[in-house]
């Protein structure tokens, strides 16, 4: 059974002429890790805001665990769906990092003992325990990003949604975010991204959007080797380009896979 289901979703922002979502249909099942790709303005953020009911379709429906988002509210949905938005400055507000990650737990009514336990283990896991009494505003860009992810993962949502998690992050931070994703114990991850290498490394399925519609959907390897998606504003990962030029037949997605494949070809 799919746990996220978009069925012919149309959405137009108030006072806007052009629909931001233009008949989007998408099913995501338990265990899937989906990267949502597309150029600027393709509708990725708009689609993600539908997953916890911040936005509701004008036409069509969005169901989370079979529940129509129009028949429930964001507070209920956010219990199951954790969304980390692109810009940490849109959410950081607390006096200390400790309070920042405890915020969601308080909203959901956890007791003091449980809050203390979870905040400590989460901050330690994210490498932020040393900053527990510091202001979130004093952290570096990468640390702020990890803090926002921590402040959502702390309540263990089943579905994790990330909007452009690697935007403005350096290679080290990207790796850390990738590791966090692979350690996620919930049921599904969906992330929008511009970063093709990040998508290729961390996601088994890729969905490409253009002008509010899905134009391609499938296993990451198939999608990137099937054709090029320049018309949707997407450049394949560099590894894929080089593999296509050099004619390596095993379809590597990452530089490590490429090196392995290359060694094999040479040995032949």
């Amino acid at each position, binding site marked *: 059974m799919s746990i996220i289901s978009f069925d012919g979703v149309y959405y137009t922002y108030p006072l806007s002429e052009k629909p931001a979502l233009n008949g989007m249909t998408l099913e995501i099942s338990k265990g899937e890790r989906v990267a949502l790709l597309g150029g600027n303005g393709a509708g990725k953020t708009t689609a993600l805001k539908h997953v916890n009911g911040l936005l509701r379709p004008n036409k069509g429906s969005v169901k989370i665990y079979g529940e129509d988002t129009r028949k429930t509210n964001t507070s209920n949905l956010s219990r199951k769906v954790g969304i980390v938005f692109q810009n940490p*400055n849109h959410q950081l507000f607390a006096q200390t990092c400790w309070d920042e990650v405890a915020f969601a737990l308080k909203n959901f009514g956890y007791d003091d003992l449980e809050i203390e336990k979870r905040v400590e283990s989460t901050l330690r896991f994210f490498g932020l325990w040393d900053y527990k009494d510091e202001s979130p505003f004093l952290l570096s860009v990468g640390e702020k990003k990890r803090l926002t992810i921590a402040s959502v993962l702390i309540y263990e949502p089943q579905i994790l949604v990330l909007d452009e998690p690697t935007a403005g992050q350096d290679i080290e931070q990207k790796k850390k975010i990738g590791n966090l994703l692979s350690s996620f114990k919930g049921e599904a991850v969906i992330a929008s991204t511009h970063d093709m290498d990040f998508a290729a490394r961390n996601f088994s399925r890729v969905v490409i959007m253009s002008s509010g519609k899905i134009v391609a959907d499938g296993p990451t390897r198939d999608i990137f080797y099937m054709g090029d998606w320049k018309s949707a504003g997407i450049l394949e990962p560099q590894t894929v380009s080089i593999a296509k030029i050099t004619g390596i037949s095993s379809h590597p997605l990452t530089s490590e896979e490429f090196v392995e494949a290359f060694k094999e070809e040479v040995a032949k």
Partner: protein
Amino acid sequence: MSWAAGLTFVHGNSWLHRLNPLPKIAIVILFFVAAIYIYQDLLHLALLFFISLMLIVAAKQMKRWWSTMKMSFLVAFIIALLDYIFLGELAFSVAMGIRFLVIVSAFSVYSLTTSPEDTAAVMTRAGFPYSLVVAFMMSIRFLPLLAQEAQNIIDAQRSRGFNMSTRNPIKLVKNYVPILIPLMVISLMKADSAAQALETRGFGYSKNVSSYGSIKPSFYEIALTAAVLALMVILILNRYIDITI
């Protein structure tokens, strides 16, 4: 876009759009003065509101005007309610609510049809310091941007199970903290980068700033301005001085 939609400029081709800002400023001032100092009764205030509505229809901006007015109706209702609770005079309280609507509506007529540049040009000609004019212009520019940021912040906090609405008034104020702090931080960051962007392009280099394509009011527009101001003077005199002829 949201409640700020009716307070930001949109390009258009109505006669209000083409009119020089000078008579428009006079008309808005007339609205303010009439609503605050001259008329106290429901009928006149309602008429003033109706006139502003007709101007909006003429400017073909009903949709945006309405998105601002929806919010304003709520505020007007609260104003009227508070007045009624504390003063107990129904007609007066309703008049206070409508007065607020007239002011917002008149301001909306002006801001929907006048580009901030034109306003700035008029202010500079009227002798306001250039830096003040630029600051004024930029704060108007930031308004819709800030509304957008506020929406993003509310979305981010709601996604963490945050719920603003509560019956407890003390809690209600406390509940705005997770919204207001990020909004303040973002505003300061934007102000800082705007200042840097201005300075790197020579802002403040010289006191004598040249202006390009400044808009001179025509004879007819100056006459209109004078007529509007004269009308205002007559109305004030009529209201406060007993001139029986």
